[in-house]
């Protein structure tokens, strides 16, 4: 009996168990400090839908042994280019949404390929280099957003007429196209964004299926033991580049899904810290630097977004001051540090 409990706990993982219990505790306390449970649930679901694809995008690179994608911003930038271009073309509804994705994929392939070439030259230090790539690409694009010849009056600065604004609304273009697709309203306070969830389901299925094919198996073997893969005649460098391209494409799609739900395209420095919450969520879900399962994405995003939604509102109402930003930073950075130190322990 004791053994069985030990087994169950170790398969869920202590951190997940604790965070899960903490989350439940927050929901129990909520009504007593005047936080509505139904709106809270609604928020958690909405945020899950917004962020899940970004978290999913990390999976291919972990599987191929490139580690956590601290350069997620690169994919986000490809997504932003797709989004603003689709707005510039005045495309609306699903046409606009999918045009944005199509253009974003085009750029993600180019960016991902170059990024992959770079990562192949720094094997062993991927995560450090990725962080630099993420940060510097954001800085570079901050200049580009000013220079690129976008004209749409909805996007450029009202006065002066050149350079894109920091925040661009998707209202009137493809705001909530997924969220409102087949949406289900439960009472007055809960809306299920069915379309977004279905779209996430579709992308998850694609990733899951890919890793059950011959190429996906090869990718996972490259991540497990590149020498082994090489001795089986697999071109390790090429497989790694493919994985980086995949991660970049999914990050690009992820940010577009985020924007249609959020309602705004945020340029300039906004993507700077995009990678940390996504990585923290995945690690919280039970992934490590070298191992990841699809359920880690789902569980991790739910727990992470749950904590993020609940802690500030409950704690703010208790201590009557705004702590939300601090709490978010503590949780996400804390998770990353926790996971990275755990990596040290599992030596070969």
């Amino acid at each position, binding site marked *: 009996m004791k053994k069985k409990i030990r087994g169950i706990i170790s398969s869920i993982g202590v951190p997940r168990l604790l965070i899960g219990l903490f989350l439940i505790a927050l929901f129990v306390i909520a009504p007593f400090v005047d936080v509505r449970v139904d709106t809270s649930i609604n928020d958690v679901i909405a945020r899950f839908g917004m962020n899940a694809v970004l978290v999913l995008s990390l999976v291919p690179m972990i599987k191929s042994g490139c580690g956590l994608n601290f350069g997620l911003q690169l994919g986000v930038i490809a997504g932003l280019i797709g989004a603003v271009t689709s707005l510039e073309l005045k495309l609306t509804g699903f046409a606009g949404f999918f045009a944005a994705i199509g253009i974003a994929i085009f750029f993600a392939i180019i960016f991902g390929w170059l990024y992959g070439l770079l990562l192949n030259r720094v094997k062993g230090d991927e995560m450090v280099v990725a962080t630099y790539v993420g940060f510097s690409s954001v800085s570079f694009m901050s200049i580009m957003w000013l220079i690129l010849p976008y004209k749409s009056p909805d996007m450029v600065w009202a006065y002066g007429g050149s350079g894109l604004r920091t925040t661009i609304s998707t209202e009137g273009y493809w705001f909530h196209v997924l969220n409102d697709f087949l949406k289900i309203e439960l009472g007055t306070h809960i809306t299920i964004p069915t379309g977004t969830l279905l779209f996430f389901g579709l992308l998850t299925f694609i990733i899951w299926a890919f890793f059950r*094919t*011959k190429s996906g*198996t090869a990718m996972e073997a490259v991540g497990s*033991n590149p020498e*082994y893969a090489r*001795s*089986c005649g697999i071109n390790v460098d090429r497989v790694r580049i493919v994985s980086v391209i995949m991660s970049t494409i999914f990050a690009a799609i992820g940010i577009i899904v985020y924007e249609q739900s959020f309602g705004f395209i945020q340029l300039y420095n906004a993507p700077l810290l995009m990678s940390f919450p996504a990585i923290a969520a995945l690690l919280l879900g039970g992934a490590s630097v070298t191992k990841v399962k699809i359920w880690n994405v789902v569980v991790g995003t739910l727990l992470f977004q749950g904590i993020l939604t609940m802690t500030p509102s409950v704690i703010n109402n208790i201590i009557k001051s705004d702590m939300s930003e601090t709490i978010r930073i503590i949780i996400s950075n804390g998770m990353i540090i926790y996971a990275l130190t755990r990596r040290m322990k599992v030596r070969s």
Partner: protein
Amino acid sequence: MSEGYLLKMESISKDFYENQVLQDVNLNVKAGEIVGLVGENGAGKSTLMNILFGEETIHETGGYRGTIMFDGKERNFSTSFDALEAGIGMVHQEFVLIPGFTAVENIMLNREITKDNFVAEVFGDRMNTLDWEAMRKRTNKAIETLEINLNPNMLVKDMPVGHRQFTEIAREIDRESTKLLILDEPTAVLAESEAEIVLKVIKKLSQKGIAILFITHRLQEILDICDNIVVLRDGKIQKELKPKETSAKEIAEYMVGRELSEQVSGDKKARKFKETVLKVEDLWVDMPGEQVNGVSFEVKKGEIFGIGGLTGQGKLGIANGIMGLYPSEGTVLFNGKELELNNPKNALKNGLAFVSEDRRGLGLLLDQPLSWNVAFTVMQVKEQFIQKHLGGLIKWRDDRAIAELTREYIDKLDIKCVSEKQFVRELSGGNQQKVCLAKAFAQNPELLFVSEPTRGIDVGAKRLVLDTLRQYNEEYGVTIVISSSELEELRAISDRIAIVNEGQIAGILPPSAKPANFGLLMLGKSELEEGA
């Protein structure tokens, strides 16, 4: 000290969740005593040693039961550092070296000799400059004791397995505070003459009063140097023996728990072969530590061709070169067609297969299940175990067929595991070796290279492996090229044996030739020709 014992392990039990691996094991060792620990693959030898040495895997999997008294105190080491501190050293079955460091660095790790400098006086010990000169000297001394030609400045990842083994041994004999030394199969990759050096060193250490726990599958070594023999079977102490009162056969019988027939070896009928299947001309292979400097030979269809020689002479380089794993030059004709070199995929596609001597480095996917390990190569190279959909656009992995195949080999090779889903990292060393063989057999090769196929395999399983190789050779006509540091094994199975010295073939002998002649060739001393 209790009753003069340095180490007393009492009723040690250990399970990996549902799998009971050790049960009420008692083990006593006196100072200066050499105790041999033997048992089948998966009997629990390494696990017992890992418990003693405070390995983390033990704690991560729920710890153990029982008590350990060492040096007069009760101990429960929570890390290997504590064990080292207390005076226990260990040479691991699977090397624990840092691949990107040189031999000196690995040997001296954490025992760096430092020179004082200005910064250190201000900031403390950590800032001392390393005294490379002194460190190199000490390393050289340790290497000299082992009478081996090892370059102290070579990176471990570039070393052949034999040299890695020596590096690991050198590290342990260099420690001054060691009271008990655990040696987990230190001779498995070494040729007999090299193993003898290690045995001599062990004896010398024991005369200095260091107690030794020695694990090996070569029973003769146990008989030669041990004061006491402990036989482990299925996690229980089966028998304690004195070497003078027993024989290799008796030990083996206690290990497997049944009577063994005398080994029939050497009296194979000389077989005749016609067709040449593999023709190697002037092959050069740049494999660090196992250089091949222009070898030429022919292998006949259906033959078992043995390659022997000392560590570092190039016997392992030949197969690695032909399989495309290290840069090579020369001509290799396979079935009369020239084989493109430096292209692993091409070699596999043409029906060659390889069981590497470096099973952890490139032989296995340790963090994947057995099934993947067995089927991966076939799946990637031959597109078997794949279901094609949409006209071949989607190549779906057929997990059901893969599981079936794996179970078949688990039965055939008697691999000890929980199921085909178990991670290979969790298997005992010998069982990992069997997985490597299964991987090669699954490819249905026309020609099979095997390097050190019985490394770390127990006596029973060794017979099984050699018999399996022979069976594949006889029934399916698979041509086999086997490189091994064990001459006896080569003589038992091969039709002809080439001895490699300094990267060249010193001579080719029939298995019936006298051992002394092989010995001479290994030292590069004789001009004996084929058929002598």
